[in-house]
């Protein structure tokens, strides 16, 4: 099972696009990639979940861990997600209130943390 993890620069943000299924098997690679970015000094990260077919609590854990790590560097982690079945996982766990979730990378870049639906 392949997990796609592509990084692009966009207006001072590192955009990490995730493709495929994020579960207990693939999450470690996702976590490592995030940690790598932070240690390269990328403290403003957008995680684009539009290509994700499946995300479970292990994936949520990676994102929560990433946000914590970035905040400790005064950075930020924004999400891009419009798929209802992925959003649902954030809603059930209350994490829509913790993350700033945007409709597109453009909206995330433009809006920063202020665009969080839950805020």
């Amino acid at each position: 099972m392949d997990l796609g993890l592509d990084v692009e620069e966009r207006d001072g943000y590192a955009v990490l696009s995730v493709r495929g299924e994020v579960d207990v098997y693939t999450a470690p690679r996702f976590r490592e990639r995030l940690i790598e970015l932070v240690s390269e000094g990328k403290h403003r990260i957008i995680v684009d979940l539009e290509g994700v077919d499946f995300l479970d609590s292990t994936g949520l854990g990676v994102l929560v861990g990433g946000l914590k790590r970035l905040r400790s560097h005064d950075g930020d982690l924004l999400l891009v997600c419009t798929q209802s079945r992925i959003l649902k996982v954030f809603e059930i766990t209350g994490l829509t209130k913790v993350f700033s979730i945007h409709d597109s990378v453009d909206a995330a870049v433009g809006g920063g943390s202020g665009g969080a639906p839950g805020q």
Partner: protein
Amino acid sequence: MTVPGEPAEVIELEIPARAEFVALARLVVSALASSDSNLADERIDDLKLAVSEACTNAIEAHDAAGSEERVLVRCKAGEDALEVCVEDRGHGFDPGQLPNHPPVTDPDRLKFERGLGIPLIRALVDEVEFSPTDHGTSVRLVMRHPGNGTAAS
């Protein structure tokens, strides 16, 4: 998949307790659920996620217990519901004793990268039952057909 009045069809999948096989459990359950015309796509996704969480926990319990045995995923396609049991041979646990997370408004919330699996399972399926077995834990997940009390518990 099922004919009214017929006994439930039982399909079993037995996988090594390793992370890479959770995807296979999801695949089998979603294929079965898709052939059950009584379950809408959204509910199939919910069941798939719940099964994935239960299998992940089973595999982590095997890991922690050093158990080399396999995890059994038993699906029952019945007249009123689709039921999936995930049986492990791990260390067991008491689901009543799990810690509660701080509310999402609390800054400490970010300390919790884990512990989201069982709350998700409870929210996603119509019925969930954690039973200790002689060797580990059995988690029973039930998705009822519409008209059989489908309100999420």
